[in-house]
């Protein structure tokens, strides 16, 4: 089971972060920040980063500047 | 300035082009399409020809003939439910802007959950729909080449639009013969809608050299041929030019966008139920005069396309005034009524000013205009 924000999706062996996000029905944009188990993953690494089962993915949306 | 021109729909055009519908739909890989139109078009005999044509090409069809003006979300949602139930793999829309926008709305809902109001605004991440073929029967909206559809929201009582790649057609078929039967009043109103698209697109903040070129050509054609088509609907040359001009203007505005004139038109249309083209026309000359303050180079182009001379030394104000007069005279030549002649009082029309300045479309205006400024425009246009 993979948690993507509030959604749970089933884990498939070999799945990347990008695959899990897609399977959850969510989308990313340049203003999205992705954390996997609390670790920051840059957008260009989403399809190169493999997931382990039970991972928690957080998709964070930048809405204002710091 | 760096600009972009990103929305493009392939087109086939010419007298009789609609006879290729079946071939083209088959080429797109569609086996069962929903054909979207209004009942009036069937009475004119236009849809049967197209339906036959599709059947002869081996394409199965489901008809949706419930199109009404200013398509409401409820009808679009019902049609989408039918389309999904029937398992269609393509949509063909025949008609004016309402038919084409209904088709787009249906396509938005093919793979995105209703209600459609969820998707109002600019949508970059909608799931794809099915191929769409658009066959316009009026020369005005340009919807066949745009990436947006305007839908009436029944619960909110307003009109809003979905802007998305899902609203972009796979093919537009421009057949001037389908516009021959358009009565003079509708010819004028839809033609002025196209003019409004062109002159607002060229003066908007998103204008770019390609959209400018399309808009200029649209203005030139409309200035010359719309009065001809209005007086003599059977003049096929005028009809050919007008369907081209409305497509040019549509291509221009879907890339460059429209602004204040359309905000005024939407408010007038919603409050007084006047046809969109007429609502666009009534303040268009004043709107273009207003843009001249910053967009005088573009307004000078408009004047040239309308065939009026502007001296080299003319100020921004003088250019704006020249454009206003030229546009007014074109509109007058089509017997399009002004606000007063539409039976609206000045007070009632000016009451819309706060609603107009609050319209999100004002984001596209070339510079900020106050509510008082909009009321002033309405006053000038009132019985001009």
């Amino acid at each position, binding site marked *: 089971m993979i948690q993507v*924000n509030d959604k749970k999706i089933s884990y498939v062996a070999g799945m990347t972060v990008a695959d899990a996000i897609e399977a959850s029905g969510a989308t990313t944009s*340049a*203003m999205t*920040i992705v*954390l996997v188990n*609390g*670790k*920051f993953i*840059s*957008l260009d690494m989403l399809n190169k980063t493999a997931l382990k089962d039970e991972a928690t993915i*957080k*998709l*964070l*949306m*930048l*809405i*204002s*500047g*710091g | *300035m*760096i*600009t*972009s021109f990103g929305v493009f729909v392939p087109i086939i055009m010419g007298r009789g082009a609609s006879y290729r519908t079946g071939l083209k739909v088959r080429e797109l890989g569609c086996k069962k399409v929903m054909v979207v139109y209004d009942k009036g078009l069937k009475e004119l005999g236009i849809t049967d020809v197209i339906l036959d044509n599709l059947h002869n090409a081996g394409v199965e069809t489901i008809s949706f003939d419930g199109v009404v003006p200013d398509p409401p979300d409820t009808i679009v949602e019902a049609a989408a439910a039918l389309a999904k139930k029937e398992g269609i793999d393509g949509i063909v829309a025949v008609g004016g802007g309402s038919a084409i926008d209904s088709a787009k709305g249906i396509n938005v809902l093919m793979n995105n959950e209703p209600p459609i109001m969820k998707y109002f605004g*600019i949508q970059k991440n909608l799931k794809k729909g099915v191929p769409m073929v658009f066959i316009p029967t009026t020369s005005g909206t340009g919807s066949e080449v745009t990436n947006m559809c305007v839908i009436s929201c029944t619960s909110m009582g307003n009109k809003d639009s979905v802007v998305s790649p899902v609203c972009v057609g796979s093919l537009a078929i421009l057949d001037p013969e389908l516009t021959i039967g358009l009565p003079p009043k509708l010819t004028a109103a839809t033609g002025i809608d196209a003019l409004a698209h062109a002159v607002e697109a060229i003066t*908007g*903040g*998103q204008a770019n050299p390609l959209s400018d070129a399309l808009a200029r050509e649209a203005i030139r054609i409309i200035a010359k041929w719309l009065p001809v088509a209005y007086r003599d609907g059977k003049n096929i040359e005028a009809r050919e030019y007008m369907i081209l001009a409305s497509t040019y203007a549509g291509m221009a505005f879907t890339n460059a*966008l429209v602004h204040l004139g359309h905000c005024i038109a939407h408010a007038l249309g919603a409050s007084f139920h006047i046809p969109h083209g007429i609502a666009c026309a009534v303040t268009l000359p004043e709107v273009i005069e207003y843009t001249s*303050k*910053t967009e005088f180079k573009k307004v000078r182009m408009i004047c040239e396309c309308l065939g009026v001379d502007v001296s080299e030394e003319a100020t921004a104000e003088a250019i704006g005034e020249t454009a206003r007069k030229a546009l007014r005279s074109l509109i007058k030549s089509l017997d399009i009524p002004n606000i007063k002649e539409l039976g609206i009082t000045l007070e009632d029309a000016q009451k819309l000013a706060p609603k107009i300045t609050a319209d999100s479309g*004002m*984001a*596209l*205006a*070339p*510079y*900020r*205009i*106050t509510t008082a*400024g909009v009321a002033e425009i309405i006053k000038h246009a009132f019985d001009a």
Partner: protein
Amino acid sequence: MWSKVIVDMKNQTVKREALEVELQDLGGRALIAQYLIKNVPPDCDPLGSENQLIFCTTIFAGSNLTTANRMSVGGKSPLTGGIKESNVGGYAGALLAEHGVKLIVVKGLPETKGLWQLHFDREGNVSLEDAEGYEGLNNYELVNRIHKSLDNRLATISIGAAGERLYKCASIQVSEFASNHPSRAAARGGLGALMGSKRLKSIIIEKPLNKFTFNYNDKERFNEISKKLNRMVAEGAKNDPFHNIGTIATIEATGANGVLPVDNFSGKLFPKYAEVGSGTFLTNLSNRGGRNKLACQPGCAVQCSNEYRDKSGEYLTSGLEYETIALFGPNCHISDLDAIAMMDRMCDDLGIDTIEAANTMAVCMESGVLNWGDSDGVIKLLKEMTDGTEFGYLLGGGCEAVGKSLGCKRIPTVKHQAIAGYDPRNTKGTGVTYATSPMGADHTAGLTMGRAFEDTGRTAQAYASNKLQVAMCFADCMMCIFAFSHMVPELPLLAELMAAMYGGSSEYARVTGLGVKTLLTERAFNKAAGLTKEDDRLPDFFYNEPSPATGSRFDINDHELDVIFDF
């Protein structure tokens, strides 16, 4: 009824009285604008006796609305020469509200030598005390000593040596809730120098034994709405990068699209931006015992603050923010997050604005005083500012003064105030805000990134800036803008909240009107202070030099800027 405290530095008198009725339901930026326009001559010398330094709480201070305890500081800016409202988190706002105080006015200049502190004690008394023993101290040491001298929960508002020396980049530092670090800054516009000119070293606010209770018009309704809004903020914060990471997360967006300033706003991309980004930050926090998700004020649901430690696990700084990282980092060609954190600490301690100071360093690099990327050199120059060397004093004059003195052609300032961490060619609406905000170049006044059609296009930029400048303006009267951004779908409720607290209209126009009226008042003040249309422009190089990242120039025409506040 809220009270005000009037401190006259001329004779060192302190008076507490009821706040005027017409100011009761104002707060933050609106209160400052209305107070200043009536009480401070716009053409006065900012460091002279006619200028006044004012501190105030927000409209909803003391209530249970999350982040309502921000504090605003105002006066005529020594840096911009115009009106200034600089707001800050930390604990001071909450405790002022507990004392029933909405406004503190500090006026006049002392006629004798000396240094003072204003003290709200636990009994609710307020007095001016001698602080000469604190002369020359910087904020961390000062706050440390204050805490040693008083055994109570308290908040501090203070200046370091920079404020005493009247550096135009001087900030006013406020202590964070819980940690007490003086790391929250009312940084912009040199208000630290104004405080220094008054010879007021600090304000100490002890937690009172008896908490002031405000008499709500309709407490039940207020609680009902604030509960709803608080829930929205808490819900929104769950997926807010500022909560989960910190404001540093902004760099992931700006670094990729050319908005992040690089090499003194060259408009280039910085290939190594990830080294000063979220990944490095989170790794360093977890490896060294640092923390994020901290609240700078009690009751905050966003909790964007953090505590950053050095390699040996020792506390280095807190409230390490995007602007500081962007401007001391890539804008100085520096990619060493630890060095940047050290710079942040030095700025907080000395009491200077990190945005102004970092831009000053970039201008020094552009002028050849330092090499690009020389983080040791930056720390050395900050040390000169701390030590008060001759060059240190010049640096304290701010980015524009330094740039002019060094003959720099590319000085990124508007109204003499340095630009924040967003290149205005690649988020043009933000450029419109920089140009036209009565505050001078200020990202918090209306950052449009991601909100216009295309950040590098012309369309809707002035429109987005106008809308945001109004919204940020009324937000700055009420709460923290980070919490505010999660309430956007329910903004009309803020008007109901005002009515439930103070009575009167619950129409949304009351709230938007507050924003519009405040902006127009600020514009009127600036006009009377001698600012003109020409002050509402970006520096020439943004118009003339394309950003190599995008090819974009700032091309919003002057007329659009001139009419942006035509309401």
